[in-house]
C-alpha cells in the first residue's frame, strides 16, 4: 500500500532489504527541503523568526516521539545519530558509571553487534561480565531461560525487541517485569521493531530504548535514545560544548543545562530531526497496527510460497517478526543475492552483523527479506518465479 508516495518504487525495483534501511516517502524529503528553503537556521540560538520556527519544529519532534513510544515526558527523548549511537550512549554514559567489577549484563547470541561490542568494552575496561541468555530450539528467548540466566550479580538485561536475523519478537513486557523484580535494568534495541509493531515504553516498562529513523522511513544519521527520567538525570554527558552548558567561568566551573539538552552538544542534526518528524507523521497516518497486520499477512504469503519450493531452506519459519531468512540449498547467499539483483530484486545476503549467532546455528550466511507495507503480493510472485528458475543461476551471474 501507499506505493505512490515512494519515488524509489517508480524505478522498477523490488525492495526487500527493509531490515537494512527503508525507502523514504516524498513527505520526508519535502520536509527536509522545506527546512533548507524556508527556515534554514540553527536551533536553540534564535532571536529571529525563522530560528524560532526551527526551535519549535525541533522540540515538537521530541514531543511527537514521546507520544509515538508513549514515554511520560518530552525530556526523556534524546536525539542521537542512530541505534548504534544510542546504545553506546546508554552503555557509556550510564552503565560505565553505575556498574562495577563482576556485575553482569545479560544479552543473547542473536543480538546485533551494536548491542554486544559496547558491553564487551565495559567487560575489558571495568571488569563487568557479559553473560548469554540461552536461546531455545527456534533461537528465541523464553522467560524461563531469562530466569535461569539471572544471578545475584545481574544488573542489566540488554535485548533487541525483534532480532535482525531470526526476526523473533521478544516478550519485552514480561522480561521487564522479571528484571525489575530482581532490581535489574532493561535496555531494548528497537531498531528492527520500531517500524513494524507498537513500541510502548510505559506499558512494557522499558528503562532504556534505542532506535534509528532510517529504519522507519526517515533519514539516515538520526536516531533516538529514550531513558526513564530518573535514569537520564543520572547520565553523564559524553560531549561538552555549545548548547549543553548553562554557565561556565574562567576558573573551570561548568553548570550543565537541563535534561535532555545536556546530551545534545553542538549544532544538532536539524534536517534529520525534521525528516524524522515527517516520517513519524507518515507512519501515524497509516497506523502502526494496520502496517503490522498488512506485513504479517504478506509474510505469511511469502512463507507459504517459499514452502512450495523444495530447494529453498527457510531458517525462521516460527518467528513473529516480518523477516524471512533463507538460502537456495547449496548456493552461497551472496551468489543468490547477485542472481536476484539481475531482476532488480534487492535482498540482503550475509551474517547481518550477528556473528556469534552464526557460530551457534552453524549457518554463516543467509539471504534476508524484511517485509514493508509497500511490498506487494505481485512482488513476492516475481521473487518466487525468479527463484523457480534459479537452476539457471550460473548462466545468469557468470
Amino acid at each position, binding site marked *: 500500500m501507499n506505493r505512490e508516495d515512494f519515488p524509489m518504487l517508480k524505478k522498477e525495483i523490488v525492495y526487500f532489504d527493509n531490515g537494512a534501511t527503508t525507502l523514504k516517502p516524498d513527505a520526508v524529503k519535502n520536509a527536509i527541503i522545506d527546512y533548507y528553503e524556508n527556515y534554514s537556521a540553527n536551533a536553540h540560538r534564535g532571536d529571529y523568526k525563522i530560528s524560532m520556527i526551527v526551535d519549535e519544529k525541533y522540540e515538537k519532534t521530541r514531543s511527537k516521539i514521546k507520544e509515538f513510544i508513549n514515554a511520560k515526558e518530552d525530556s526523556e527523548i534524546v536525539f542521537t545519530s542512530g541505534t548504534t549511537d544510542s546504545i553506546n550512549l546508554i552503555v557509556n554514559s550510564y552503565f560505565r558509571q553505575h556498574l562495577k567489577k563482576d556485575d553482569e549484563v545479560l544479552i543473547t547470541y542473536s543480538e546485533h553487534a551494536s548491542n554486544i561490542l559496547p558491553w564487551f568494552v565495559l567487560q575489558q575496561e571495568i571488569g563487568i561480565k557479559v553473560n548469554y541468555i540461552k536461546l531455545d530450539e527456534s533461537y528465541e528467548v523464553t522467560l524461563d531461560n531469562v530466569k535461569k540466566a539471572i544471578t545475584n550479580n545481574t544488573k542489566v538485561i540488554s535485548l533487541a525487541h525483534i532480532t535482525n536475523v531470526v526476526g523473533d519478537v521478544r516478550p519485552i513486557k514480561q522480561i521487564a517485569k522479571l528484571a525489575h523484580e530482581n532490581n535489574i535494568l532493561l535496555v531494548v534495541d528497537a531498531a528492527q521493531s520500531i517500524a513494524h509493531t507498537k513500541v510502548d515504553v510505559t506499558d512494557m516498562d522499558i528503562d532504556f530504548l534505542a532506535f534509528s529513523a532510517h529504519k522507519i522511513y526517515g533519514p539516515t544519521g538520526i536516531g533516538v535514545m529514550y531513558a526513564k527520567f530518573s535514569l537520564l538525570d543520572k547520565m553523564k554527558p559524553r560531549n561538552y560544548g555549545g548548547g549543553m552548558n548553562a554557565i561556565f567561568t574562567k576558573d573551570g566551573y561548568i553548570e550543565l543545562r537541563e535534561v535532555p539538552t545536556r546530551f545534545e552538544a553542538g549544532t544538532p542534526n536539524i534536517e534529520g530531526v525534521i525528516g524524522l518528524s515527517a516520517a513519524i507523521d507518515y507512519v501515524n497516518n497509516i497506523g502502526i497496527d494496520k502496517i503490522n497486520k498488512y506485513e504479517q499477512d504478506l509474510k505469511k504469503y511469502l512463507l507459504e510460497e517459499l514452502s512450495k519450493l523444495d530447494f529453498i531452506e527457510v531458517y525462521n519459519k516460527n518467528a513473529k517478526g516480518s523477516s524471512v531468512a533463507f538460502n537456495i540449498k547449496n548456493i552461497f547467499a*551472496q551468489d543468490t543475492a547477485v542472481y536476484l539483483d539481475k531482476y532488480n530484486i534487492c535482498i540482503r545476503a550475509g551474517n547481518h552483523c550477528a556473528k556469534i549467532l552464526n557460530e551457534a546455528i552453524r549457518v554463516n550466511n543467509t539471504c534476508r527479506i524484511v517485509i514493508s507495507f509497500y511490498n506487494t503480493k505481485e512482488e513476492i510472485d516475481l521473487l518466487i518465479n525468479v527463484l523457480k528458475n534459479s537452476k539457471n543461476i550460473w548462466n545468469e551471474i557468470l
Partner: protein
Amino acid sequence: MDANIKRSIILDNYEDKTNRMDIEDTSYIKHNSRNVSCIDNINLYIKINNNTIEDLKFNGEACVISTSTTAIMCKLLKGKTIKEAIDIIKNYDSMIEEKEYNQELLKEANVFDDIYKQPSRKKCATLTWHGLLEELNKYE
C-alpha cells in the same frame, strides 16, 4: 574466450575439491582471507620450502567467484618460486584492474578478465590472491 567456456571453467573449479581441505600440519602457514564488506571467508594453507610454494590448499565459505579463483590460484602457483608467484599475482591484479598484463602467465585465471564489468565482485576475485601475496611478501 567464449562466455560458455569461461563459465564452465569457473564452475569446474568451483566444484573441484582437489585442493580444498583444512590442513592441520603446522609446516603450513595458515592465512585467513576475509572480506568484511561481503561475507567470503577462506583459509589458505601455504607450504614454502627453498623459496618455492611446495603446496597450496584452501577451505572456507565463499561465493562462486572467490571459491573458483582460489582453486585456480592453488593449481597455478603450486611449484612456483616465490618470485614467480609474486609476478603472476601482480599480472592477475593488472588484469582485474584492466591494465596491461601477460596473458600467458595466467592460464585458467584468464576467465576472470571481464570481472571489471561487475565492480562489486572485484574484491571476490582478488581476496585470496592478496592474502597469499601478503604472506609471500614476508619472504621477499
